[in-house]
């Protein structure tokens, strides 16, 4: 079990070629040498400008004097702070200081260990004369010969101790020629296999269960290779694949030597990789003859190995000792370690990284069975890389925040399990029998046979740090979308107090920009021509105008049944989906929601969508009607109340003005205006009344779906709207009472006749009180020359807009000002929210951890707290 460890010492130069100094790619390089030994020049020659941190410079930063020794402690704080930030970011860092005193070096070794990187020493042990000459000619400082001599003295006494001090790599350069010949060679870490892209078959804890391992390899399509004695010595993977073993090959099971022979053969042949488990670690110590407690199954392995020839035991010792704590694979997208690895430790090297990889995060306590209490590090895991591990036997592998434990307790009578990566497909074989009685009862077979839906699982857990504070969400469509802290703070209350369970909340629809309102001659505030023109200018010829339903935006998640819902989304209270608003609130109570879902499910079944999409769930974007079903309070408290006040005050006002006019007073145009306002009040009342129709329970409630958002494994927002509306029509045919069709018209934005027809269609719709239409690019998700194109533009009807801008908005003096509205922010907001909405769907479809989905969903809600004109 080696960590990176090497030394170069050039006491006897033997060639004049380049002198290669190996330095791990990620390390803390400490230059060591007396004043005048040429450290700064060496650093400048071999490392980048920002890679080198100089103690002199830091002294200057804190005290205005590079040589002020009194400033050294403060300067070191600055230096270690900067070094820490660099190392956290995975950047090689070089410390340019004399470092001749053990105390100074101890601090640097600690710094390296605190950030889990390897400390490297490069010693410039140049002759005294060279150092003295150089310092003597320095203009800025003459440190004095005595100081140089003392430093060289300290240095020479230190050199042999460097390894003991913790430097894993030590290079010593003793002459000016050596320095001139030196070439720094950056070496990949032993854990770094980012260039290996798989596909892999990652196999959990085997524990000496050779027959099960052979069966599993067979199931995975590997060809077993046997030696003359019939023992398996290798397994040839299907083309392109290779195996990864998660450690704990040995102990407890019936044939640890057989497992070792097979795995060692596969590793030697390049058919597999392996990380060490804690059982290998202990086996190494036992084989090295060190004092170990022979328990937890080590006794079986030692007994079995005793029957093997000494050469085999030596080979086992070498194999196990050379295993590297963990592996980083596939561009950093996959990390394997026996007991898992938190993000900060991935691709790092230190004793505690190794210890975490072997034993996991332990609290230091033991449970009632005498086993160490493990800290559930995966619960806190927020890293981008998938982490696969074993170590803790679990009856059923469960994804927790993109981590998966593959130890399914084969040796305790469970199963031996592998995960196909990147397919995320689990393959397992059952244990032939209970090979070893566990210290802690291991739940097996009965529960597993009962089917996966029945099992209890610890729901993915959301942390406040997943949503609060300033956050940046990476989206495929629009890059990084930033959520400001005050927006997140505003959304937290809404999400916590009003939204449904986050496990149901897969998507929030984006806000939609209205059409431009520039035309001063138009009697309408919003006119279809400007929407068609907007798309024409964005390079979109084919658009579809869709009727804007007089309801509320609804997202409908319906599963095939409650069991599948529980299995897929983890909510086990018997619900089979959710119907929620654009702010994540449920429309109905749990019982009513289930009734609605039952009806939706029947239609989805009749339309044959389960099989067509090979899915257990369907996520629909829809409008739920009537508006009063959700917004009766708003209609009563705001709309009806305003109507009541207006209707109460305007007729007497008309009468009063009329009486004054009858008396011959010059009331100017007040009478005409007040009469018109009285008519506006009536029109306003008529407008909101269209949104009120009696519903009781679900009686009278309708859904108008217009887009299939996602099904298992697939997001559908890249399919054109004809496809989506065709699908919606199939649902309407299946359940015409419940579903409502969306009227639509295709428009060619480049054809004036077509635009005129679209405008006529809109007018016909709105003249009879319709809300208006939404114009969308027919192709749905479209990227233009200037990036993402608005997914929809709303063009609302003249009467409906009274509900937005007030009863009197049609008066010319109001209309003129309302036309002047700034759409830039609203459009930008709509695009960002759209990108986030698509992102959350993608994350659902990729089965990413809940916090990743919730992050994007929450961001939409947070952006909605943007102080943009709320009625725009």
């Amino acid at each position, binding site marked *: 079990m080696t960590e990176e460890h090497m030394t170069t010492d050039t006491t006897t130069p033997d060639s004049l070629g380049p002198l290669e100094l190996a330095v791990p790619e990620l390390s803390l390089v400490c230059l060591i040498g007396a004043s005048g030994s040429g450290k700064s020049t060496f650093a400048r020659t071999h490392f980048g400008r920002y890679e080198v941190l100089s103690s002199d410079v830091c002294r200057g930063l804190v005290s205005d004097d590079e040589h002020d020794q009194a400033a050294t402690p403060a300067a070191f704080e600055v230096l270690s702070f900067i070094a820490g930030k660099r190392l956290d970011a995975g950047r090689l860092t070089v410390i340019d200081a004399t470092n001749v005193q053990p105390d100074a070096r101890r601090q640097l070794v600690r710094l390296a260990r605190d950030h889990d990187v390897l400390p490297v020493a490069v010693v410039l042990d140049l002759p005294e004369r060279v150092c003295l000459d150089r310092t003597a000619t320095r203009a800025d400082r003459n440190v004095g010969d005595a100081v140089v001599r003392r430093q060289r003295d300290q240095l020479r006494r230190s050199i042999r101790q460097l390894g003991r001090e913790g430097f894993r790599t030590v290079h010593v350069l003793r002459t000016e020629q050596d320095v001139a010949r030196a070439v720094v060679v950056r070496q990949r870490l032993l854990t770094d296999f980012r260039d290996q892209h798989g596909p892999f078959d990652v196999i959990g804890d085997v524990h000496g269960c050779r027959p099960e391992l052979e069966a599993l390899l067979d199931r995975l399509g590997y060809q077993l290779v046997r030696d003359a004695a019939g023992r398996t010595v290798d397994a040839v993977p299907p083309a392109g694949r290779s195996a990864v073993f998660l450690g704990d090959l040995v102990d407890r099971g019936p044939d640890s030597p057989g497992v070792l022979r097979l795995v060692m053969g596969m590793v030697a042949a390049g058919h597999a990789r392996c990380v060490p488990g804690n059982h290998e670690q202990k086996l190494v110590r036992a084989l090295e003859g060190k004092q170990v407690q022979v328990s937890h199954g080590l006794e079986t392995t030692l007994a079995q190995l005793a029957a093997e020839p000494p050469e085999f035991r030596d080979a086992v010792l070498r194999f196990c000792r050379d295993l590297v704590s963990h592996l980083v694979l596939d561009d950093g997208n996959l990390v394997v370690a026996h007991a898992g690895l938190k993000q900060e430790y991935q691709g790092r090297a230190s004793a505690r990284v190794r210890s975490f990889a072997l034993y996991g995060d332990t609290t230091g306590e033991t449970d009632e069975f005498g086993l160490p209490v493990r800290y559930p590090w995966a619960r806190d895991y927020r890293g981008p890389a998938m982490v696969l591990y074993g170590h803790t036997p679990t009856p059923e592998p469960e994804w927790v925040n993109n981590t998966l434990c593959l130890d399914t307790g084969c040796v305790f009578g469970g199963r031996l399990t592998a995960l196909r990566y990147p397919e995320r497909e689990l393959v397992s074989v059952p244990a032939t029998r209970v090979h070893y009685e566990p210290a802690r009862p291991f739940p097996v077979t009965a529960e597993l046979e009962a089917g996966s839906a029945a099992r209890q699982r610890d729901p993915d857990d*959301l942390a*406040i740090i*997943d949503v609060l504070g300033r956050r940046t969400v990476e989206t495929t469509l629009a890059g990084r979308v930033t959520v400001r802290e005050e927006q997140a703070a505003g959304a937290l*209350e809404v999400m916590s107090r009003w939204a449904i369970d986050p496990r149901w909340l897969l998507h929030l629809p984006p806000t939609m920009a209205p059409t431009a309102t520039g035309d001063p001659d138009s009697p309408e505030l919003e006119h279809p021509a400007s929407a068609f023109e907007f798309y024409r200018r964005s390079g979109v010829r084919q658009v579809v105008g869709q009727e804007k339903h007089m309801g509320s935006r609804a997202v409908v998640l319906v599963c095939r049944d409650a069991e599948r819902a529980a299995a897929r989304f983890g909510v086990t209270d018997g619900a089979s989906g959710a119907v929620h608003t654009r702010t994540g609130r449920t429309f109905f109570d749990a019982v009513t929601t289930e009734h609605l879902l039952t009806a939706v499910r029947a239609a989805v079944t009749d339309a044959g969508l389960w099989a067509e999409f090979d899915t257990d769930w369907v996520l629909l974007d829809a409008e739920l009607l009537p508006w009063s079903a959700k917004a009766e309070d708003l209609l009563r408290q705001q709309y009806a109340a305003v109507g009541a006040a207006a209707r109460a005050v305007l007729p007497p006002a008309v009468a009063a*003005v009329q009486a004054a006019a009858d008396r011959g007073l010059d009331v100017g145009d*007040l009478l005409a205006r007040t009469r018109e306002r009285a008519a506006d009040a009536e029109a306003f009342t008529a407008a909101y009344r269209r949104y009120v129709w009696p519903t009781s329970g679900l009686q009278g409630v309708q859904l108008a779906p217009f887009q299939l958002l996602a099904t298992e494994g697939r997001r559908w927002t890249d399919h054109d709207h004809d496809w989506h509306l065709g699908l919606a029509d199939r649902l309407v045919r299946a359940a015409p009472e419940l579903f409502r069709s969306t009227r639509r018209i295709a428009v060619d934005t480049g054809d004036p006749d077509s635009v005129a027809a679209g405008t006529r269609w809109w007018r016909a719709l709105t003249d009879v009180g319709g809300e208006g239409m939404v114009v969308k690019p027919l192709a749905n998700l479209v990227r233009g020359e200037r990036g993402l194109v608005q997914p929809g533009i709303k063009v609302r009807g003249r009467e409906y807009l009274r*509900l937005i801008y007030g*009863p009197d908005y049609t008066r010319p003096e109001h209309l003129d000002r309302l036309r002047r509205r700034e759409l830039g922010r609203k459009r930008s907001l709509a695009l960002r929210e759209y990108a986030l909405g698509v992102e959350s769907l993608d994350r659902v479809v990729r089965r990413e951890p809940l916090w990743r989905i919730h992050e994007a969903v929450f961001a939409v809600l947070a952006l909605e707290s943007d102080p943009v004109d709320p009625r725009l």
Partner: protein
Amino acid sequence: MLLTLTATASPALPDATDLGFLLFKHPGRAQRFPSSVGVAHVFWPEATAARSTVALLVEVDPIGLVRGRGGRGSAESSALSQYVNDRPYAASSMLTVALGRVFGTAMTGRCDARPELVGRALDLEISLPALPARGGADLTQRLFAPLGWSVTAAPLPLDPELPDWGDSPYQDVRLAGRLTVATALTQLSVLIPVLDDGKHHWIGDDDVDKLLRSGGDWLPGHPERDLITRRYLGHHRTLVQDASTRFAALDDRPDDQADATPDATPARPLQRLRREAVLAALRAEQASSVVDLGCGEGALLRDLLADSTFSSVIGVDVSHRALAAAGRRLQLDRMPDRQRDRLQLLQSSATYRDDRLTGQDAVVLMEVIEHLDADRLPALSRSVFGAARPRTVLVTTPNAEHNVRYPHLAAGTMRHRDHRFEWTRAEFRSWADDVAAAHGYDVQFSPIGDDDPQVGPPTQMAVFRRSA
């Protein structure tokens, strides 16, 4: 907005058109006055010696109302940020502004042309076709009747075509009485915003002066003085206190009543009993670090800070606004360092795991769980009992059985409109027992408030102690 004022001829006013002199408005003219709230039109629908009516019609600019607003926080005044708004129609503080603009001189009781009319009580009639009366249909009566008005207030339906929706908050109000014009106008300018209970502008010290100036003659003895003061001053505690003290000096009521400033008003006893029970339980558990999860505006925090055995107090709320209010009420900026160091206010949520809350002795959930949908409670117990895992958790919640003891509470309704559920004692126990078993806690229950032999106490408390 429309207001009409009619004067009928009487011995005090032989010629009703003289109302024009009192108001400084000529009955033969229609005038318009631009003001900060819109254009005020003044005209005379009738003007005869027997009877004269002046009308004030204010055209509020609904677009300017939304777009023209300055940098004020939109949270409190969200009604004003809506284009669909009753302000252009209903009588409100905006009408008061227009009254002051148009009839300001009349209100001071000056009349240059007919000085003899100034002090005379005249037969007046006022009509307000849409007057909001928030807080009960009889409030208009209670406010105006003691001042000598006879009040006719007809409630307006929300929508005659939707009779199920019932009445709107507006009334068609007619007032008749014999008062001086100045007093009548002044009373309107105070009582209209009080009935509306929502001022459109920032309320400050000036408003206390204005209230004293306008109401000095008639408000001190008004039976609804406290309500009027409170509402007129936008419920600002310090302003209300200030005004009450100053009114007390003008008043002839006994001292004990006059001293009833809001601070001295006892909190609803149940709230106090709850806090006392929680504090007693925390002391009994010897908790020194306490998280008040769902601290609201900080009533319990104040008690915790008053006792130095609580060395660390964390107030947590999901609402940023509530935390800001707690900071103000606790006067954080003036708190001594030693006390300030014991207190942290954090925005967080009981349904998300928050590592900042681990390692504390106790977490208090006082009247919190009933504000969460029942299906979110597992998330709460995971974050509190599973992740934060304090030694002690205190949970209080209403006892639904006790609701029958509240006569004003209709059967089957809950005590607060945001309550998502109210549990019986058995329901609470069953939840608490399950949570305790799942997370390794023992739980005990105790009543808070009068433990009624039939229906139990108004509030129930569970004390969870970590057993593992």
